[in-house]
């Protein structure tokens, strides 16, 4: 098996960068750890989940989807380049890697999206088995595992108490990455450390069943009173993919951008005529839960949540998926009157 010294991740990144790859990996950025492009001197941190998800590498917060040349009231539509820079995302958590299954589905059903697919084809995803989990982690509740391989091209398994990493290629892209890593990898036989234990936090299928029957439940109001509607949950979520399209222009150039958007925002569904189907935060918070755990399972036979726990970690009000789903379980325990 191919083995890498765990403290050599930075060197591996440097070697791949020198070989022409764009290397994304978790690095210290101020007082947070962010999945970001490697640069010389970057402090690699594989001990915590980055604040942002792998989604950023496939669907950036803002990107040009149409470019125009403007000349007074005349214009021409220009070619808009896609980003197919050869990229490797190192030490991505298995929850993040598994989220690409849903993104692949959304960005390809009927109308393949060229911008997403260019990035997707160009990226090699190397996930890192979680050796530890925190209180917000709940991947096992929604079908994941701390050592799951879904979505990954290769997986790094900690060994020797975290001193070493076993690189296990899973796809052709993963094998090509292992070849590129070349001399950084040693041939050795070591036993992988046990992955983190992530307890199940709620009964996901039972919650989905409850959601299907309780669109009109009065509890949505109680559960949303603390929500500020800031959208932090959606922006850090590995599967949230909703976007807005907005134009910007100067006198000579126009750009049509797609920007991240979220159902947490009031304007998301507001009609031009004034009517808003989701006029309050309760209906918007309901949409977030329903979309992830009821509508996506119904429509695509997938679960719209990978259990990374970011929504709860970043929420200024401490709200998350787990708390609300546990509350749903509690309502089911109350005997019918």
């Amino acid at each position, binding site marked *: 098996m191919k083995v890498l010294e765990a403290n050599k991740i930075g060197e591996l990144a440097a070697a791949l960068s020198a070989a022409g790859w764009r290397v994304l990996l978790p690095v210290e950025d101020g007082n947070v750890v962010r999945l970001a492009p490697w640069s010389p001197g970057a402090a690699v941190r594989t001990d915590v989940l980055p604040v942002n998800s792998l989604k950023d590498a496939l669907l950036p917060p803002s990107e040009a989807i*149409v470019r125009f040349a403007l000349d007074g009231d005349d214009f021409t539509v220009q070619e808009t380049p896609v980003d197919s820079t050869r990229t490797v995302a190192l030490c991505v958590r298995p929850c993040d890697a598994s989220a690409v299954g849903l993104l692949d589905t*959304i960005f390809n059903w009927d109308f393949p999206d*060229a911008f997403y697919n260019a990035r997707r084809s160009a990226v090699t995803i190397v996930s890192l088995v979680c050796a530890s989990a925190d209180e917000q982690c709940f991947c096992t509740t929604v079908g994941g595992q701390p050592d799951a391989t879904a979505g990954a091209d290769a997986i790094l398994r900690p060994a020797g108490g975290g001193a070493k990493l076993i690189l296990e290629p899973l796809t052709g892209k993963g094998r090509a990455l292992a070849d590129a890593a070349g001399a950084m990898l040693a041939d050795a036989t070591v036993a992988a450390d046990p992955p983190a234990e992530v307890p199940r936090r709620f009964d996901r299928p039972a919650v989905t069943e409850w959601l299907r029957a309780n669109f009109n439940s009065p509890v949505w109001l109680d559960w949303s009173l603390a929500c500020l509607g800031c959208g932090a949950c959606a922006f850090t979520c590995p599967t949230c993919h*909703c976007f807005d*399209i907005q134009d910007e222009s100067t006198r000579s150039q126009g750009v049509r951008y797609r920007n991240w958007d979220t159902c947490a925002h009031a304007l998301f569904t507001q*009609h*031009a005529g004034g009517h808003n189907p989701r006029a309050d935060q309760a209906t918007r918070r309901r949409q977030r839960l329903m979309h992830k755990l009821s509508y*996506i399972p119904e429509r695509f036979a997938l679960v719209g949540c990978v259990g990374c726990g970011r929504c709860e970690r970043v929420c200024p009000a401490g709200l998350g998926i787990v708390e609300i789903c546990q509350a749903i379980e509690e309502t089911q325990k109350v005997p019918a009157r």
Partner: protein
Amino acid sequence: MIENIYQPTIMRIAASHDEAPDVRTLRLEFSQDQARQEFFAAYRVGQFGIYGVPGAGESVFCVASPPTRQEFIECTFRRVGRVTSALQDREVGQTITFRGPYGTHFPIDSWRGRNLLFVAGGIALPPLRSVIWNILDRRDEFGHITIVYGARTVADLVYKHELAEWAARGDVQLVTTVDPGGQTPDWAGKIGFVPAVLKELAPPSDNCVALVCGPPIMIKFSLPVLTELGFTPDSIYTTLENRMKCGVGKCGRCNVGSLYVCKDGPVFTVRQVMAMPQGDL
């Protein structure tokens, strides 16, 4: 290399017509014949387009002209915001961006030999106008055609010249109405709300398909009238107007339940609409 699904085609404004205060119809010609042919190979009534001005943005409206007229498309819309203002500010001869057609259509081929009832209110006549002209251009294939159209005031009625044309044809029953107080001294139509006028008219439901499009309040009170007349939820069609951006099932904005209005709609039967989570409509 996958084509860019957001890349618009360019349309030239061939004509512009003011229908009502702030409501304008633009007649658009394709700048490339290949784009025109591709559009009309796909287009069926009820589908929508995405119209835009570079620098201002894109807006979604129905295509208000029928596929039986393949030289141009028309759209009718109210000036309500940045994009609709930019579109209305364009002059005849200038260009705009266009994507489409998108979404589902009214299954008019399955309605051959049947009677048709159109019920529309205010600015919601445009999505039915394409169907009406498509049916009239193939008049022999269909039975009785009844159109009930109302607006708040006489000035708010759109397509006034076409209403006169339909009334004069002899093979269409047209009933127009305005809300009480919205009439002018020379108004010859009905005075009353659409549901009440519909009830008084009592069009028979036998072998008839109803198409209802209007403000939510009009739809809410028209459906019980239609039900009383014997129309079933499967024989009443409508078109939803959810806010959209991408039009191609990606941006998530038009989700209602597990449906995407841009791909599963905008045309639905009332039975389908009733199965949706009503609080999200």
